[in-house]
């Protein structure tokens, strides 16, 4: 069973995931960031493949992607870094990027490299459900990979059920109608949306992302879902200080509060 599926089988709540952009702030950052995140007790990571036109991302991740590309990051280096880390870390790794990167690299070649690098799942926000089911599902399965789908406050119940059926690890629940980025609080409106999804009793666990940035928003999210994902707030932190100490400190504050 792949590592990520095992994690969700064994752990049912307070799952903490951190997103970082590979190649940021410097080209080799992942080599330090990933082990530090494991040491800090993060449950799984999302390793962002920087893209020139990240349309679902807010300013912080956009800027980190731009910088990473300027640093020379590309898919070959990305996969080599993760391959190098494969035997040195245990936490599951999810690759996050955009569908054009996979298509241009060649789908099978891309998926083979994901497999070789020990990647458990993919998040390609612009890969539509229908196209995944028709054209990619069998291919992903061949390489032991799974695609993680997003739902938002606007997603209809019918479609949530379809997404639930097409998923086998977790569903990425976008906290509000927005691109990625930090928000300070979770609103009453968001809580009622989280409540609504919780009451659907989906087959798959949900993990809340977009707008999760601190202990308060993280623990709030964990009341309604199996866990939460933090992206922009972490990227901001490593842009200022990407040392192991800074990373461990960031994660501790998320878990325990200030």
């Amino acid at each position: 069973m792949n590592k990520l599926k095992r994690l969700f089988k064994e752990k049912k709540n307070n799952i903490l995931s951190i997103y970082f952009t590979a190649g940021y702030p410097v080209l080799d950052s992942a080599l330090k960031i990933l082990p530090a995140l494991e040491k800090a007790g993060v449950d799984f990571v999302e390793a962002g493949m920087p893209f020139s036109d990240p349309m679902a991302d807010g300013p912080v991740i956009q800027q980190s992607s731009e910088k990473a590309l300027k640093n020379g990051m590309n898919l070959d280096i990305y996969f080599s870094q993760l391959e190098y880390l494969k035997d040195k870390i245990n936490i599951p790794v999810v690759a996050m990027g955009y569908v054009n990167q996979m298509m241009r690299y060649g789908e099978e070649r891309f998926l083979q490299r994901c497999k070789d690098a020990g990647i458990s799942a993919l998040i390609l926000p612009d890969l539509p459900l229908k196209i995944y089911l028709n054209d990619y599902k069998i291919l992903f399965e061949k390489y032991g990979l799974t695609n993680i789908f997003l739902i938002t406050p606007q997603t209809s119940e019918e479609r949530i059920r379809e997404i639930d059926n097409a998923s086998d690890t977790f569903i990425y629940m976008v906290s509000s109608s927005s691109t990625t980025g930090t928000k300070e609080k979770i609103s009453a409106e968001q809580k009622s949306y989280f409540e609504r999804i919780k009451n659907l009793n989906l087959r798959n666990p949900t993990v809340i992302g977009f707008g999760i940035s601190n202990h308060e928003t993280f623990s709030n999210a964990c009341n309604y879902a199996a866990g939460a994902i933090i992206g922009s707030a972490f990227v901001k932190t490593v842009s200022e200080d990407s040392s192991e100490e800074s990373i461990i400190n960031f994660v501790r504050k998320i878990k325990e509060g200030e």
Partner: protein
Amino acid sequence: MDFKVNKEGFYGEFGGAFIPELLYPNVKELEDNYMEIINSGDFQKEYKQLLKDYVGRPTPLYFAKRLSEKYGTNIFLKREDLNHTGAHKVNNTVGQIILAKKLGKKRIIAETGAGQHGVATATVCALMDMQCVVYMGEVDIKRQAPNVARMKMLGAEVRPAKSGSKTLKDATNEAIRDWINNPEDTYYLIGSVVGPHPYPDLVARLQAIISEEMKWQLKEKTGSEIPDKIIACVGGGSNAAGAFYHFLDNEKVELIAVEAAGKGVDSGQTAATTTIGSPGIIHGSRTLLMQDEYGQITEPYSISAGLDYPGIGPLHAHLFKTHRGTFLSATDKEALDAAKELTELEGIIPALESAHALAALPKIKVKPDNVIVVNLSGRGDKDLDTYMKVFGY
């Protein structure tokens, strides 16, 4: 061969809606409603009335006598430059603003490169009393100052896109992000036959008025509604889509699309997508685009801000792939020469975009009895700065 979009939103292998789930409800709402709305009697009545009284349609089909003599054939110019706001862009914005109103939207967002689509959007928003936000690359804001001022005077807010190359592609990304952040009250008014399905089809249908008029005008002037060739420039490709639309299925008509070669297709500074591009996804659509080996979208270049886009609409990618369309390119210099030639021979100063279409004339084989239509998509007022610099007026 079928050149209309299929049920899934594809033209052959191109098109579709490769969008984040965040945009799914917005796009689905549009997809479920656009055909019924634009085919309704209500819509058609308001659209046609505005095109006539507000835009100034039908635009003339002008027999360019001296230009024809020069090239030894019969050249007609479809005068989209005579539309209100100076280009074909307004055909689309008039239609989409009525659609947005019928969908109950309150706020309009748009992207713009040269500012022509931005101005055409700001214009119809003033007309319909709608809030208007136009995203424009920071670089384009600097090089198209008069259009920025026009948009502001028309009441639009112009927001700079500061990411990437700070041009049209990035303005489009910003508009998409705005739409993600405002899914309920906001309508995204796309300016070309690009973006996720149904936009390429919607915009093509609204621009199809160009070829609809061409048919009866040709019949009046030549006795036949069928020309031998139609020439149009392609950035995203909306004027070309409109000029080709009613002739797509008639293989006797050669459809010639002219892309911007910039400083030359091999110069590294070009926007000739079909020459140096490859299949991929840009702005939610599978099409041909300029990208590196890792799928990173590369920066286009053209002297003409309206053609400075690293992709083409999926319809055009399909026309290219199936050889239904003839794809040529014109360099900055060739376009400038063609603009000067038209001005001197016919007293018409064309937009730099349209000058690329004219620049195809010396490149194609013609017979004396051929009927050739060049879609003159816009007028050159906005490009005077460039013309002054280049020609030293």
